[in-house]
């Protein structure tokens, strides 16, 4: 046994312990199956020809691997009368996600900073009131939001959608940053104040450089939430500016005709790739960010 493992609590000392260790891996392996199954089903189906899907079971491996459905889903499957696949909608989503994530993260960072390091009277009440926004069911706000966007002249536009996502992301982003900054020693900020640094000076030169763990958690969270949003996409965008989730739904929810399950699944995977990439590559930092205090209770 390697030295590293000695730190664990279940230490492999005896036969019983070895058995425990095996059991541990067996249980972990079982959960791997549970978690991977939907993704495997999607991936297998996406590369199977249609007739193989009809005759086989959902987990039978493809005999002929084909990427034709994937290509079709990307740039030639029909969504409504437009047959350009998901490609244009992926760009719509990107155009919406990036500004929304940037704005809500920036605002969250500065709110969290102001609410913890420059405590003023009522700061906690303000934070509490803002945080409640995280719990509101989105179906409730659809109609008043629509009216507001209409009045602002933003109905059916990408900036409108960016506004919506920024507003309803604020509660979470502020929460993440506030909890992180609470853990940052006040002494550092006090010392900087004595040295004559101002509100923004301290923020940009001292606090923000310490905050990457919180930034990572916030960006991952916001990116996933906004990318996956469906309800706001339906209500607040028009045809060509639909985000990819709405386009995917249009593509999959066919009301007549032969269902091309492989194209559907390939399209679903395409819509999922950006968030998957974020989780696979940044997941490590996500957990680090969480341990660094972003979820301190």
């Amino acid at each position, binding site marked *: 046994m390697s030295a590293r493992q000695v730190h664990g*609590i279940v230490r492999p000392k005896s036969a019983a312990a070895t058995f425990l260790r095996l059991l541990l891996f067996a249980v972990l392996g079982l959960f791997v199956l549970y*978690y991977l199954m939907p993704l495997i089903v999607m991936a297998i189906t996406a590369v199977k020809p249609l007739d193989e899907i009809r005759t086989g*079971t*959902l987990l039978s491996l493809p005999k002929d691997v084909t990427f034709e459905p994937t290509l079709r889903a990307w740039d030639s499957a029909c969504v409504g009368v437009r047959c350009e696949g998901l490609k244009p909608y992926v760009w719509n989503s990107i155009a919406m996600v990036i500004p929304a994530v940037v704005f809500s993260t920036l605002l969250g960072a500065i709110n969290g900073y102001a609410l913890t390091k420059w405590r003023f009277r009522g*700061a906690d009440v303000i934070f509490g009131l803002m945080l409640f926004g995280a719990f509101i069911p989105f179906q409730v*706000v659809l109609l008043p939001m629509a009216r507001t966007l209409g009045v602002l002249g933003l109905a059916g536009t990408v900036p409108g959608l960016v506004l919506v996502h920024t507003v309803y992301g604020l509660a979470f982003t502020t929460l993440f940053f506030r909890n992180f900054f609470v853990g940052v020693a006040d002494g550092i900020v006090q010392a900087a104040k004595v040295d004559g640094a101002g509100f923004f000076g301290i923020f940009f030169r001292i606090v923000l450089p310490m905050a990457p763990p919180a930034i990572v958690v916030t960006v991952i969270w916001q990116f996933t939430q906004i990318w*996956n949003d469906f309800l706001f996409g339906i209500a607040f965008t028009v045809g060509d500016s639909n985000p990819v989730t709405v386009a995917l739904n249009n593509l999959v929810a066919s009301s007549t005709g032969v269902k091309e399950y492989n194209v559907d699944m390939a399209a679903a995977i395409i*819509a999922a790739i950006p968030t998957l990439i974020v989780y696979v590559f940044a997941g490590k930092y996500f*957990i680090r960010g*969480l341990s660094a205090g972003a979820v301190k209770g």
Partner: protein
Amino acid sequence: MARTATDLVTRLKRVDLWLPKVVVAPSFALSLFFVYGFIAWTVYISFTKSRVMPRYEFAGLIQYIRLWETPRWYVALENLVIFGVLFMAFCMAIGILLAIMLDQRIRAEGVLRTIYLYPMALSFIVTGTAWKWILNPTLGIEKLMHDMGWESFQFDWLVDREMAIYTIVIASVWQSSGYVMALFLAGLRSIDDEIIKAAAVDGAGPIRTYVGIILPMLRPVFLSAFITLMHLAIKSYDLVVALTAGGPGIATDVPATFMYSYAFQRSELGLAAASAVMMLITIMAVVVPYLYSELRAGRK
């Protein structure tokens, strides 16, 4: 550098008295309007006879009376209780179990962690179809088992009125338990190794160490996991729509789908608003005490 340091500090102090408030003000104003303003609007609509579109003539409690006379509302509430309790219990249990197991210096921890966490990245718009296949008796696991020769295998919960709500639990636990795992893993990592070693020296076994010493230290993590899961449960909508669309019959209706369906499919805005208010009250009953304790803890 002509000015003295004291001058600078006093000048800054004055600016810094109002600057933090100014910076927070826009976000706060947005919240006031987009959260509380809209809630107020919804509450008002629940006292009107709005149908297709909002109407503003006050009509008293009629929508609440109708709501509590609707059998489907009780189905939705009952489902929320069943679903909510099981969802939270399983997410917690699986999340904690996985976190503890991953904390045993597992070689492949990075890979496993990613696998357990990735469902969080996907919406049910994406995975709904796959889940429907897996759970469907004539296409999914049941057929797979039959094809493999296990003829008596039965797994038809998706199409069974009594059991369908549990398939929703299966899929939702799949999505959210990884997040709970991440929270607890982060919590475990933040605990000082010395404590664990001390416990080992005292002769406490692994189970006693975890149950008796470590988990109680993670109380804040429990709380934030609980709150996250609770609000996910009350808001859950996508997965019900993707998996069963509330069926078979209306057996898997939950308050969120009830509200959506009355507001947007049935043109019963007033009734839908009344149900939304009931949901908001439930959320408040859970969240407000939490926020209160959270903020008191922060003040110390």
